[in-house]
C-alpha cells in the first residue's frame, strides 16, 4: 500500500519535470525558427527549418511524456482543471503547428505559433497545479474525449491566429498611424499582458507572497488569500495580514464567487504589467512594435500566409465541431440529462462555432481574403480565449474549472 503512494509521488515529480523540459525545448525551437528570418539562402533556410521542426517534435514528445506520466499518477486523464486543460491546449497548439508546418513548410509560423504555445503553458502554471480528484459529473470517458478534441480544435483554430498575425504585421501599412496600426498594437499589447501576468505571478510566487482578507461571501465570513499584492480587495473585506500593501479599491459586487476578487486582481496586475512592458519596448524601439517587426517578415508571401490561416480554420472547424459541440452534447446528456442547456460555457462554444462558420462563409465572398480574414482570425482567437478564461472568471457556470 505504502509503495503505491510513493510511486505516484515520484511519477508526478517526473511529470512536472518533463513539462519544464518541454517548455525549454519549445523555447529553443522558437530561437531556431527565429534564426531563419535572417537567412536569405533558401537551402540553408530549409535546413535550419528542419532543425527547428525536429526540436519542436522532441519538445512535443517530451510533453506527451508529461501527459502520460501525470495520467498514471492521477488515475485519470489530466484535463480536469484549468492548469491541466491549458497545458494540454498548449500541447495541441504545438501539434497544430507541426501539422501545418508539414503542409506548407513556412518557418515563420514557428516564430509566432510556438510563443503563443509557450505563453499558454506558462499561463497555465499560474493556476493551482496539484492533482485534483474528479467530482462525480467529471467521471466519464466522454469528459476526456470531449475535452481533448475540443482543445485540439481550438488549438488548430489558434494557429489561424498566429498566421493572421504574421499577415497583419507584414501587410498593415506602417507609414503613419491609423486605426489599423492602433488595433494591431492593441493585439500585441494583449499578448504582452499575458507575459506581464506570468512575470508578476512568478516573481511573487518566488517570494511566497501572501495577503489574507476576511470578507463576506454569500453572507458568510470567509478568508481570502491573495498571492499578488491586492490592488483590488474583496468587497467589504478586511485585511488581516500586517504590513501588506493596498488595497486601493474594492472588487465590484457583481463578480461572484470566493475567487472573484483574486482573479479580478490578477487581471489588474496583468494589464498593469502589460502596460509597463509595452511602454518600455516603445521607448527602446522608438516606434510602433509592429513596425519594428515588419521588416523581419518581408520574405513571407502574404497570399501563402493567408492560405495557411484559412487552412487552419478549414482543418480546425470540423475538429472543433466534433469536440466542443457534439461530444460535449453527448457528455452533457449523460451527466446532466440534457445535451444542451444554455450554460454560459456552452453558449460561448456555440458562439465560437457560429463565428467560424461566418468566417468560412465570408471567405466565399470576394474581398474577404487577406487582411479582413486575418482580422477575423484574431477575433476568433479572442473569442476562444474569452471562453477559456473570462467565462470561468466572470460568468461562473456548471463548468467552473477554477
Amino acid at each position, binding site marked *: *500500500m505504502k509503495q*503505491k*503512494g510513493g510511486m505516484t*509521488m515520484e511519477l*508526478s515529480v517526473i511529470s512536472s519535470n518533463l513539462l519544464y523540459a518541454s517548455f525549454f525545448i519549445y523555447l529553443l525551437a522558437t530561437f531556431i525558427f527565429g534564426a531563419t528570418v535572417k537567412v536569405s539562402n533558401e537551402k540553408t533556410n530549409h535546413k535550419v527549418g528542419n532543425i527547428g521542426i525536429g526540436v519542436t517534435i522532441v519538445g512535443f514528445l517530451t510533453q506527451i511524456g508529461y501527459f502520460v506520466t501525470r495520467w498514471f*499518477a*492521477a*488515475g485519470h486523464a489530466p484535463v480536469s482543471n484549468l492548469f491541466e486543460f491549458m497545458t494540454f491546449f498548449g500541447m495541441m497548439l504545438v501539434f497544430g503547428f507541426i501539422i501545418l508546418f508539414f*503542409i*506548407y513548410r513556412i518557418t515563420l509560423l514557428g516564430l509566432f505559433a510556438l510563443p503563443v504555445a509557450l505563453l499558454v503553458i506558462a499561463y497555465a502554471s499560474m493556476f*493551482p497545479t*496539484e*492533482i*485534483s*480528484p474528479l*467530482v*462525480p*459529473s467529471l*467521471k466519464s470517458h*466522454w469528459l476526456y474525449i470531449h475535452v481533448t478534441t475540443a482543445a485540439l480544435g481550438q488549438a488548430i483554430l489558434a494557429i489561424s491566429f498566429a498566421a493572421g498575425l504574421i499577415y497583419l504585421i507584414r*501587410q498593415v501599412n*506602417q*507609414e503613419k498611424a491609423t486605426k489599423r496600426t492602433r488595433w494591431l498594437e492593441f493585439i500585441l499589447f494583449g499578448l504582452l499582458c499575458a507575459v506581464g501576468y506570468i512575470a508578476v505571478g512568478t516573481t511573487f510566487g518566488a517570494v511566497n507572497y501572501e495577503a489574507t482578507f476576511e470578507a463576506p461571501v454569500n453572507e458568510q465570513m470567509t478568508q481570502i488569500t491573495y498571492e499578488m499584492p491586492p490592488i483590488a480587495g474583496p468587497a467589504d473585506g478586511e485585511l488581516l495580514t500586517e504590513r501588506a500593501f493596498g488595497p486601493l479599491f474594492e472588487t465590484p459586487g*457583481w463578480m461572484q464567487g470566493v475567487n472573484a476578487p483574486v482573479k479580478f486582481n490578477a487581471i489588474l496586475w496583468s494589464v498593469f504589467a502589460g502596460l509597463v512592458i509595452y511602454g518600455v519596448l516603445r521607448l527602446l524601439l522608438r516606434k510602433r512594435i509592429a513596425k519594428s517587426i*515588419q*521588416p523581419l517578415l*518581408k520574405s513571407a*508571401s*502574404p*497570399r*501563402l500566409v493567408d*492560405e495557411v490561416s484559412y487552412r487552419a480554420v*478549414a*482543418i480546425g*472547424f*470540423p475538429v472543433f*465541431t466534433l469536440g466542443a*459541440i457534439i461530444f460535449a452534447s453527448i457528455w452533457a*446528456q*449523460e*451527466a*446532466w*440529462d440534457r*445535451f444542451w*442547456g*444554455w450554460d*454560459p460555457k456552452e*453558449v*460561448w462554444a456555440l*458562439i465560437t462555432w*457560429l*463565428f467560424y*462558420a*461566418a468566417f468560412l*462563409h*465570408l471567405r*466565399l*465572398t*470576394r474581398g474577404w481574403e487577406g487582411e479582413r480574414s486575418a482580422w477575423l482570425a484574431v477575433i476568433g482567437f479572442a473569442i476562444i480565449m474569452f471562453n477559456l478564461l473570462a467565462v470561468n472568471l466572470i*460568468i461562473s457556470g456548471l463548468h467552473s474549472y477554477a
Partner: protein
Amino acid sequence: MSEITCECGHVNPEGTVLCEACGKPFEENQHLNDNKPEQLLNMRYDGSARRSQTYQRTIVDKIWNFFSSVKIGVSIIIILVIASALGTVFPQEMYLPPGSDPTTHYKEQYGILGQIYYQLGFHNLYSSWWYLLLLAMLGVSIVIASIDRFVPLFKTLRKQKPKRHVNFMKKQRIFGETTSTDIDYKRLKKNLKSKRYKIHEEEGHLLAEKNRFSRWGPYVNHIGLILVLLGAMLRFVPAMYMDEFLWVREGETKEIAGTDGLYYIKNEDFILETYDMEDEANSQFQESLQNQSGPVPENYQTNAVIYERTDLPVVPGKEPELEKVREAEARVNHPIELDNGISLYQASYQQNEFSSMTFKLHDKGNEDTDYGQFTVNLIEPKDEYTLDNGTTIRLERYFPEFELQDGEPTQVSKFPRNPAFIFEVKVPGEETEVSFAGIGVNIDASGENDYKVGLVDFQTRDVTGLTVKRDYTLPIIAFGAAIFMIGVIQGMYWNHRRIWIQPKDTGVWVAGHTNKNWFALKKDIDRIVADTGIEPPVDQQEEKDEAERGNDDGIISDKQ
C-alpha cells in the same frame, strides 16, 4: 425562357455566366458574377445559372433572393452570435439560485442594468420568440441558399467538356503557355493518374479532375443542420419529449411519472461518498483535498428497485399490484435506462430529511416527568394523538420547514427539513393548552401552560432527486449531427481540383482551378508537368500581387 446557345453548340439555360460545356464567358451575363474585363474569372459555382441571379420580378423571387444571399446568411449568423452573447451577461432565469424571485433578483443583484435586462426579457433569451425566429430564418436561409446553388452547380459539373474556350483558359488564376512541340503526353497522363486525377479527353484536349465529391460537402452538412433544427423543433410536440422530476425518499415506492402508472421505483438507499484523505488510494489527491474548504464528493448514487404494475388496466385509486423488474443503480453519468425509452438520472438529493419525531408530555418545570409519548410521521402526520392516560394532542398546524420571520413562524418549503408543530394539549379534566414545538424551540404561547411537549427522538432519511426523461428527438438530432460531420469533413479535408490541358499549334496551354488551397494545387501541377516538357504555369493572382507590392505595402526597405 431565353436560352443561350454557345458557339460550341451547347444550349445553356437563362442566366448562365460561363458556358456549361466549354466555359466561354457570355458577355451579357458577366455582371452576375461581378466579373470585370481586366480581372481573372470569378469561378463561383462554375458560372452556372442560379435562380437568384436570374429572376427578380415577383415577390417569390424577392424572398428567394433575400434568403439565398450569403451576405444575409452571414448577417443572421452574426446577429445570433451577438444575441447569444447577450444572454450570458447575467444568468438566465433557469440558473438563478432556487427560490429566488426573478422580478426582484435581477434588480437586487445587478442594479439598474439587471432591471433592464429582466424587462427586455433577456432572462429567458434562448426561448424568446425572436431568438427562435432567428433560428428559423437561419434554417430557411440554409435551405434556399443550398437549393439555389446545388442544382445548377451539379448540372454544370456534369456537362463540362474537356475542350475549353480561349477566354476561359486565359482568365484562370493558374495559367501557363508553353511554346514547344516536344511534349510527352504519355508521361503527363501517367503523372496525372499517379496523383489520382481522373482524365477526360476530347480531341486531344484533357480535363483532369479529382475530388468532385468534396463540392457536395456544404450541401450535405447543411442537410445535417436542417435535421438538427427540425429535431430541436419537434421538442415542442408533447409526445416527443418528456421531462419530469421525482423526489423519492429512502424506503418509499413511487410511481414513475410519465409511464401512465405502469412503472414504479423504490429508493432502497441513497449514497453520497466523499473522497477520504486517509485512504491510500487517494494519496495523489492529498494536497488538493487539503486545499479544499469542505469534503469533495466522489459519488452520488441511488440504489433502486424498478417495479412494473401487473393489475391492468390501471384503475385510479386502486392499490397497485407490483412485480419487481430489476434492481438498478442511478449514478451521475450512469442513468437507469428502462425498456420503454425512459431514463432516470441522478440529479439531486436531500440528506437527513426528518422522517418521524417522537415527543413526550411532561411538567413544564420538570423534564423527568413523563405522561406518555407519541410519534409523528412527518410524511403523513395524524390530526390527533391519544396518550395512555387519555390525554389528546391535536396537531393544530405543521410546518415541514419553518423559519421565524419577525417573530411569526412561517413555512419555507413543504419538505421536512426543519419541522415544527403547534399542538393543542387536552389533559382530561384540565384546560386546553397550546404549545409550539420544533427542533431547539419550544414556545409556550400563553405563558401559563402547566405542561410541555418535548422532543425525545427523531429519525432521518435521505431523499433522492431523479429526473425522468424520454426524448424521441435524440435519434433525429444525433443523425443530423452525424450527417453534418460527414458533410464538413467531405468539404474541408478534400478539395475539388481541375487541370485543363489544351494542345495548340504553338505548343500547349495549361490552366488549373481549385475551390480552395491554391498553393497545394500549384504544387500538384508543378510536379505533374515536371518531366513532360510543359513549363510550370503561374499563379496570375500572385504575379499581380507582386506587381502591386512595393508601391503601397508600407515596408521600409532598409538595405538591399
